[in-house]
């Protein structure tokens, strides 16, 4: 005989029914492509050569070791991520502190401040390409009116300048995301902490160092975690602004992966690049998650 059909059993069955479609979709769109990349990376598979895929073990990975273009793109990505995330964190903190004050029109100011985050990155890339245009760009125009430069700079045409220009666009786009997260954290800090601290004669800067920063640490780490992952996979902005040029100066790992697959049709090597990027990301995320867990226990501990 079957087991009695208890309320609990029925509830569990409904529960799995509820979760199943979501899980299946996540498996197809997230787990399968990553798993598939691990397998493909062990093959030599190039749609351009019409040859049958051959198992070559770590062949793709040893090729990567000597691939200067891969190392350059990895270096570019690391530089881009480090600068962008650092500046976004500082600016985002500033914006959050301002938006946390009481002033008339605060709702409108907050609305305006989240606008950059909500707009499509590819279209924002177009806007910044126009701003940094070497001939008619408004950025050159402003710099020349302020007599900071004498001749227009070729922002997207010179390697170092192009990298800086794309970083600037990314900072504009995502500072608001950091600010939203930090603002939520600021709002949860009780005001009396500051009042007591001020009565003890602490300056605003001391309050910021001794109250705001420590209590905000979980939100800061979450913001860094998200931004690290997004920035490491930055694609839309660069694709639109420079396509990785000039001379590979702004080529990120993501653009190299895209070119390897879509232009050179080299699925095996592209998959190996995907795997390595994935592993770098996982390591970074693990470190941030560990730090986060440490801070959470410390705060709830005392």
């Amino acid at each position, binding site marked *: 005989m079957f087991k009695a059909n208890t309320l609990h059993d029925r509830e569990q069955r409904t529960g799995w029914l509820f979760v199943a479609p979501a899980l299946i979709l996540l498996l197809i*769109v*997230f787990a399968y492509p990553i798993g598939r990349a691990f397998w493909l990376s062990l093959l030599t598979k190039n749609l351009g050569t019409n040859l049958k895929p051959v198992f070559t073990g770590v062949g793709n990975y040893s090729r990567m070791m000597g691939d200067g273009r891969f190392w350059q793109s990895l270096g570019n990505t690391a530089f881009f991520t480090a600068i962008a995330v650092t500046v976004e964190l500082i600016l985002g903190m500033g914006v959050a502190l301002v938006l946390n004050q009481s002033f008339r029109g605060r709702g409108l100011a907050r609305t305006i401040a989240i606008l950059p985050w909500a707009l499509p990155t590819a279209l924002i890339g177009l806007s910044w390409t126009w701003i940094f245009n070497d001939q*008619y760009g408004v950025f050159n125009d402003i710099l020349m009116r302020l007599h900071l430069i004498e001749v227009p700079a070729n922002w997207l045409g010179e390697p170092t300048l192009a990298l800086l220009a794309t970083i600037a666009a990314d900072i504009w786009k995502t500072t608001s995301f950091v600010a939203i997260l930090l603002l939520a954290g600021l709002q949860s800090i009780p005001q009396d902490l500051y009042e007591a601290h001020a009565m003890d004669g602490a300056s605003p800067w001391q309050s910021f160092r001794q109250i705001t920063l420590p209590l905000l640490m979980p939100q800061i780490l979450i913001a860094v975690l998200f931004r690290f992952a997004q920035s490491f996979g930055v694609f839309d902005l660069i694709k639109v602004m420079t396509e990785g040029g000039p001379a590979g100066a702004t080529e990120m790992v993501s653009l190299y992966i895209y070119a390897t697959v879509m232009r050179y049709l080299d699925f095996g090597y592209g998959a190996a690049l995907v795997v390595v990027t994935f592993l770098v990301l996982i390591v970074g995320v693990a470190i941030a998650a560990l730090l986060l867990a440490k801070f959470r226990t410390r705060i709830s501990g005392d």
Partner: protein
Amino acid sequence: MTPDLPTRPVKPASSSRQGILLGLAVLLVIVFSLAPVLWQILTSLKVNEDISQLPNIYFPSRYTLEHYTEILHRRPFVNYLFNSSLVAIVSTLLCLGIGSPAAYALARLHLPGEQIILAVVLIVTLFPYILLFLGLLEIVQALHLANNYLALIIPYTAINLPLTILVMRSFFQQLPKDLEDAAKIDGYNTLQLVWQIVLPTTIPALVTTGILAFIFAWNEFIFALTFITRESMKTIPVAAAQIGGSTVFEIPYGPIAAATVLGTLPLVLLVLFFQRKIIQGLTAGAVKG
């Protein structure tokens, strides 16, 4: 829009100097956030001679809508807007339909292994799409889904699922349980309970999540670039990025500016009307998860 009520008693500014500093800081934030968008709007309304005028013209004496009529009449931008809307709306609805039941089960039904499911959902939100496009491209090719709206709708539904599950789950957890317990005693089964009791109270949370999902779907670039190559089926971000002149020397700055304004307009409206919901949803998805 209603002005924000101060959440805590307003401290009188200890000096007018502090008030001025705060005002300057607010102004700085607003200029920083708006300037690039305003410049693009201004460019889209300038006549061609003014666009290529040096030094730049900040207050043009004439305005024109010719760039808008060009992209709407001579280029199929109405089509692109339709494609973007269709894909974003359908995937958002699907995502809410699939994600909310999952979120409810994870909040209420004590499934074995729910911690693992939640951890997976959290980690998945961090994957950049470039890691997925190769595997998805193979699926699209194998199933002959290229140039089919499903090639975008399915991935967009999936990429918004983690956020939906996290936000909706935190909502269900805050929902008082008494209502559901009473309904259970009245003999509702779980499906009836969710459909008739829980769903009606869920509308605000669904709106919040739906807005975020719509924004992400509307903005997506890499899948739309890769899986859709037929001109008439492209979405706005891809189509705008691919506007080009007949030569490199005549890049149509005016139409590009008009296209970016048109493509960002729906999102600007969403932000204007739902600012608070967007902030709530984002922080619930990222912080509470």
